[in-house]
């Protein structure tokens, strides 16, 4: 088992998975929160954009989003995503960043919908009291509603992050050598030890996702708003 892990650089591949997950998670949380803000905004154009975006990206297969991102941005528009074109790793870095972008575009819709359901758990009286004190819409959202909404959706957000971790495997489709990319190679060349190969990857993902669930489960209990 360990010879396999070493031979195929499994640890490096999982490290890439972790990095993809990490950056996409942070960006999805930010973009998802902004989208949720748009979806509850009093400005009709913002609400329309938020709704359109979520329905479009949430209902498109992730593979399609990633491949489209890659083809449109990289091949057609020649976007470099701030990667250094002289660098030897230019394409690896570019693909990595495009994968983060695609994962974010997709995952943010789930973050948005989680947060929106969280917003619905905040009694309207909270926002009314804040408005009655003279806070602006943005302040009401940022200071009163979102902090309470977040606290009630830590659990669902953990599920979104776990799904994201597993979804990083789709990045193979645009040539990022994360865990699933290596898995494919190993299935091909180590077919006699296929069970071991599967075991390695199943374990790998459990090790990555289990702490997310456990830690955020504790956090959810701790930050829950008492009413």
């Amino acid at each position, binding site marked *: 088992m360990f010879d396999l892990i070493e031979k195929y650089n499994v640890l490096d591949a999982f490290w890439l998975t972790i990095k993809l997950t990490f950056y996409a998670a942070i960006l999805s949380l930010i973009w998802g929160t902004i989208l949720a803000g748009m979806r509850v905004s009093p400005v009709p154009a913002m609400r329309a954009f938020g709704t359109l975006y979520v329905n479009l990206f949430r209902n498109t297969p992730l593979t399609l989003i990633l491949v489209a991102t890659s083809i449109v941005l990289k091949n057609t528009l020649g976007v470099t995503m701030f990667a250094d074109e002289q660098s030897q790793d230019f394409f690896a870095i570019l693909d990595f960043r495009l994968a983060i972008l695609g994962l974010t575009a997709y995952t943010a819709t789930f973050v948005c919908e989680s947060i929106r359901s969280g917003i619905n758990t905040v009694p309207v009286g909270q926002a009314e*009291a804040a408005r009655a004190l003279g806070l602006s819409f943005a302040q009401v959202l940022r200071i009163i509603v979102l902090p309470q909404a977040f*606290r009630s959706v830590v659990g669902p957000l953990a599920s979104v992050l776990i799904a994201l971790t597993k979804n990083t495997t789709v990045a193979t489709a645009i040539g990022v050598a994360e865990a699933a990319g290596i898995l494919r190679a190993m299935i091909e060349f180590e077919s006699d030890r296929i069970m071991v190969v599967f075991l390695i990857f199943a374990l790998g993902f459990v090790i990555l996702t289990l702490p997310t669930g456990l830690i955020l489960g504790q956090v959810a209990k701790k930050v829950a708003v008492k009413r």
Partner: protein
Amino acid sequence: MTAATPAPPMIRMEGVDKFFGDLHVLKDINIEVPAGQVVVVLGPSGSGKSTLCRAINRLEPINQGVIEVDGKPLPAEGKALAGLRADVGMVFQQFNLFAHKTIADNVALAPVKVRKMNKGEARQHAMGLLERVGITDQAEKYPAQLSGGQQQRAAIARALAMKPKVMLFDEPTSALDPEMVQEVLDVMTNLAKEGMTMLVVTHEMGFARRAANRVVFMSDGEIVEDSTPDVFFTAPKSDRAKDFLGKILTH
């Protein structure tokens, strides 16, 4: 001295109509509340008392008519409206304290975020107000840890922190256990004595008799009577008011 133009009323509503769909909840409301006056609004459930109260700071937009606060018409949404709301304190039946903030932070929040007061000053001011409503020892607790009466007093302190020109109360004691009603009414009575302009929707007849300068009786979205507490309680003119008083006094 030049002939001073009389100070504008603190609240003025003229020809105000409000509909919820087909339901006509405010019907041609005309009322003026001069500075320093305490007006109690009475009326049966569903008569439009809350809606009247909420229309004054535009938590409910109206369909027709004019509402002015301190001589200025209510602005539409946006910065100007937020500015007006900052000057109009509101106390809700359900307290609506910010559940994720301590009591002291609840009180200090709006002065910092809206009035741009510095944090230390806001905090000091907040502690002074908590003392005034008698809950200094609860300052570091969260709302859910307080009794209803304490929460409502904190909510009053939170509204006062903005140094409002007028205070609106929508049934401030209706969600309280009976033994906690008086502590909240005491705070309100003190406020009235200090000269705060107040519009109070309540079912507390004792408070209406003692603290109000004026009683407004609403029924089916209309202002049916507008008189002093004495006149209203001893000699109501309309049948609707007599009926209403008959029901609550037998309780």
